[in-house]
Each structure stands twice: as structure tokens, then as C-alpha cells.
């Protein structure tokens, strides 16, 4: 499996970041960064990571099942994550998530038919003091109102 030169460089650096014989430590970062480029944690990616980290594919596979940010199926190009945990909930996070479901016509962990947008109700993402919070891919959006959410989605549609 081949990756972009940037990702190859990152993998190379990762494999040299641990004590001798500890390349298994690179499994999680390689899956996370690999997923971003490949689009999902595919069987092929699992086998490639296993080969490079000198572990069995099963040792990689069991890790994929544990971490909530790893996905075996591709998500939308824009993965919209709405937090409804305690701090966000108190200031309208749950209502914002309901609004997001209606606006996007999607439910929890669903992806639009064109593959552009996916939605997920997520746990605390560390934006409690600036709630309610939304993350699109890795970008934070703070103090999100329903109007701002609509604008955000329109912006994404125009960017597609």
C-alpha cells in the first residue's frame, strides 16, 4: 500500500519514536492518520499497519474496535459532530443536535447519499466553556446557535 509522501514521512518518524522493539506503539497514530488519507480503516490499511508495526493484523483489528474515532466505513467528506454532554446540554446542545438531524435529514452516525456529510452525536469534546460546540472534521465551532449551524452547513455545501 502506498501513501502520500507526507504520510510516509510521518509513518517513518512514528516508527522511530519508541524504544527498540516497541513499534506496536505506532499502531494507533498510524490508523488515525492513515484513516484520514484512505477515508476509512480498511482491511488493506489494517494489514499494512500490522506489517509496518511488526504485529499481527488481529492485534490491529482489536484496536480498531475499541477507539470511537476509528471507522471501518467511510464517513462524509464533512463529518459533523454535535456534543450533547452535560455542559453543552445545559445550554441547548440537545436541541441543537435535534435541529441538526432535521436540517441534514440524517440520524446518529448516518451519511448523506452523496457522501458529502455525515452526522454524529458525540461525547464531550473539550469545549465546555464555549458551549454548545460542534466539530466538523477536526475544526471546532463554539457557541453554536441553530442559525449559525445552518450557515455552517450552507458553507460546507458551497465548499463541496
Amino acid at each position, binding site marked *: 500500500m502506498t501513501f502520500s509522501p507526507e504520510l510516509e514521512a510521518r509513518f517513518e518518524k512514528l516508527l522511530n519514536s519508541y524504544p527498540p522493539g516497541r513499534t506496536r506503539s505506532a499502531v494507533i497514530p498510524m490508523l488515525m492518520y492513515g484513516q484520514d488519507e484512505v477515508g476509512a480503516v480498511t482491511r488493506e490499511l489494517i494489514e499494512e499497519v500490522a506489517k509496518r508495526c511488526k504485529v499481527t493484523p488481529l492485534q490491529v483489528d482489536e484496536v480498531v474496535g475499541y477507539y470511537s474515532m*476509528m471507522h471501518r466505513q467511510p464517513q462524509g467528506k464533512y463529518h459533523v459532530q454535535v456534543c450533547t454532554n452535560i455542559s453543552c446540554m445545559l445550554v441547548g446542545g440537545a436541541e441543537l443536535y435535534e435541529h441538526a438531524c432535521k436540517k441534514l435529514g440524517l440520524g446518529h452516525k448516518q451519511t448523506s447519499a452523496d457522501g458529502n456529510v455525515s452526522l454524529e452525536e458525540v461525547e464531550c469534546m473539550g469545549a465546555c466553556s464555549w458551549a454548545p460546540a460542534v466539530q466538523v472534521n477536526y475544526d471546532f465551532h463554539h457557541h453554536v446557535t441553530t442559525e449559525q449551524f445552518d450557515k455552517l452547513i450552507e458553507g460546507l455545501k458551497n465548499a463541496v
Partner: protein
Amino acid sequence: MLYNAPHPLEVKILTRRFHLENSASLDTYLASDGFVAFKKAYEMTPEQIIDELKVSNLRGRGGAGFPTGMKWSFVPRTSPKPKYIVVNADESEPGTCKDRVLMENDPNQLIEGILIAGLAVDAHAGYIYIRGEYRYLIEVMEKAIAEAYKRGYLGKNIAGTNFNFDLYVQTGGGAYECGEESALLESLEGKRGIPRIRPPFPAVAGAFQCPTVLNNVETFCSVPAIIRDGGAAYAALGTPRNGGTKMVCLSGHLNKPGVYELPLGFNLLTMINEVGGGIPGGRKLKAVVPGGSSCPILKAEECDVAMDYDSVAKLKSMLGSGGVVIMDETTDIVKVALRVMRFYAHESCGWCIPCREGTTWLRKMLQRIVDGHGVPSDVNMVNELAKNMLGRTFCPLGDAAAMPTISYVEKFRDEFEAYVRKNPIVSSELVSVG
């Protein structure tokens, strides 16, 4: 960048550079006492560094509040094994968003704190484990680390000394459990984040089975100021046994929620009414979660309290990670209990049965109560089940789910009972259990 305006009552130790232009750059750091503490620490013996930390009364800022100097002193410095420094930047406790601000605005302060820890325990490599959702902070730290290497503040012969240190950033994969120290170490080793049996503690067998200092971001960030200005000066900022300042994350029903740096022992009501700007619409305070969702709730009448580890512990709650969640009189505590339990049921790693089954059953029972299908015995059953989880798991997640639940039921029992009474079967007295 800062996401909220600072407040005049803040005491700026960790945040002292935040107002400077390019506060994250090494030049700004060096121009404002950067690496002064490292150079001072280099001239000290490891015992002196650790003694200074003991004098400072610095306690672990991740939630447990364990004295940092004592934790470092447990590392067998003369062990032939390599030693490691691991930074817990897996900030995931609901209500907590302080490590983000610390890394984003002053990454070099964290690097210097790590280097001083390295001097104290003879470690020459470290890992900053950052939660996967904080990808932009991984980039911030990688940039700061690259600059530090380039300018001789990481790598070989740091700042002209004979001390060598390599620092790496590790991404998490989205798991609350990995904020627990032994699960974090498992994750760092490329495995599922399940807790380890202790002892041995990480100080003896941590990362790669080697002696390891593992602390929260804020704890490491506090170290340069302690070494630079002395442990006594730092201790004097707080209350006895609770030294220094604490980053508090005010959230919930407030006019000015935000992250602020306040001395330990700061009054909670002043925190709410002055720093946080009071409750919107003049509504009344109902309850406060003082240190992240794992901490038992405080009723409004308990909130005239000094926010330090010992004073909050006297109220049978915890200062925790500094996530202060304010709830006004409109808050539905039963719905809060359900939302919090949905979180723990989702995040339980499944390793210990009392936690895995307990959180799931509590979630189901609380859902049933909120849906109006609860029966009178459910309220006691929630309480009893939670109590049976306490102390029966390898890591604190089981307790973290059970303790707040018990406090919700015991302090707001009438609200749970009101839900149960709404059940048409209960109100027609067809069910007489309970």
C-alpha cells in the same frame, strides 16, 4: 487564541504569557523568563527539585489531587532501566477544557515542565498523549517541539547543558478511558485502553514497563513557575496543603462562562457570581458540579465553599479536574443524571463487570424513569446499584459513574419520585412495589 476575556480576579501564573503577541512562539517564551527555570533546575540536585515541588504543595491537576513531589519521588532514579515522562493531554472529563488553552497559548511552558521532570528523575524521553479530537493541538505541539529542537531546547545538550531529552506527540483515538493513567499507558503501547492492575504503579512500571512520571498537562505547566520563583511563593498563592493556582473551566448557566486561572481556595459563589458573571436572567442557582461530571453534585446551599481539594472533599465531592458546571433552577436533575450515565455507559471500556454492566443498567433505569415508565422501587434501585459499583473496579471509571449518580438521587430524590409519579400505571396504584 483565547476564547473568553480574562477576569481581573484571576491570578496569572500559568496564563501569564497568554496576552502576549505570538505567545506560543519560542521567541516570546524566551523573552519572558522562558527556560530560566530549566537552567536553575539543571544546577539543582534531583532531590532539591523534588523538595521544591513538595514545598509548593502542588497536587495533580488531572483530578486525583495526589501530591506531585511525592509522586516523582517514587520513581527509582537509580534503576538501570530508562525512565519516561508521559503527559496526560487526553482531556475528556465532561466540563473540562483547560489543557486545550494551556497547550494552545503556551506550548513551551509545557515543554519546560517536562524537561524539569526529566532532570528530577533522570528521564531522557517523553510522550505527550493528546486526545484524537484535539488534532489542531497536536499540530501546535509538533510545531513547538520542532522549533525547540531547531533552537537547542530539545535533543542533545539542551540550552548548552549536558542534558539530553527527546519529546514526542502521540494521538489518541477517541476514548475517555485513556485519560486514566494505566489505560493511557496501554494505549501508548498500541493496545486497547484497558486499565492495568496496580501495584506496580507507573512510577515503577509505567511506559514500556519502565519507571514513568505521568501527570496532567496543567501539572507540568505549573512546574517552571515553582522552580523559578520557589515552592514557598507558589504554595502561598493557595491554602495550606493546596498550593498555587488552578485552571477552572466555568460552564453551564452563566453569563460569562470561560476558562480562568484562580488561586486554590477561591470561593465558589464568587467564582459563579463575579468571575462567571452570574446566572442569566437573574435565575437562582440550583446546583454545581465542582470538578467534572465524575464529581458528586453540590446543592446551592453547599456552594459557599473554598475551592481547594480538602474543602471540597469535606462536602464529600471532589475538586477534580476543575470543570465547574453551573445549573440554575430550571435544570432537570434527572435528565442530567441520564445524560451523564449515557456518557459513562458509552465510555466504559468493558474490562470490569461492575462498571460495564453497572453503567449500562443505570442508563437503562434512568432512561425508563425519564420516559415515564419508572416504578417507585427504581429510585432506590438506582442508588443501590450505584453503591454496589463503588470500589469494585480496576480503575476509577466505575466510581466516577456511581458517585455522582448517588449524589443526584440522595440530594434530589423528590425530582426522581416526581417522574415516577407521572407513570400512569403508578398513579392508578396498580403497582404497589417500592
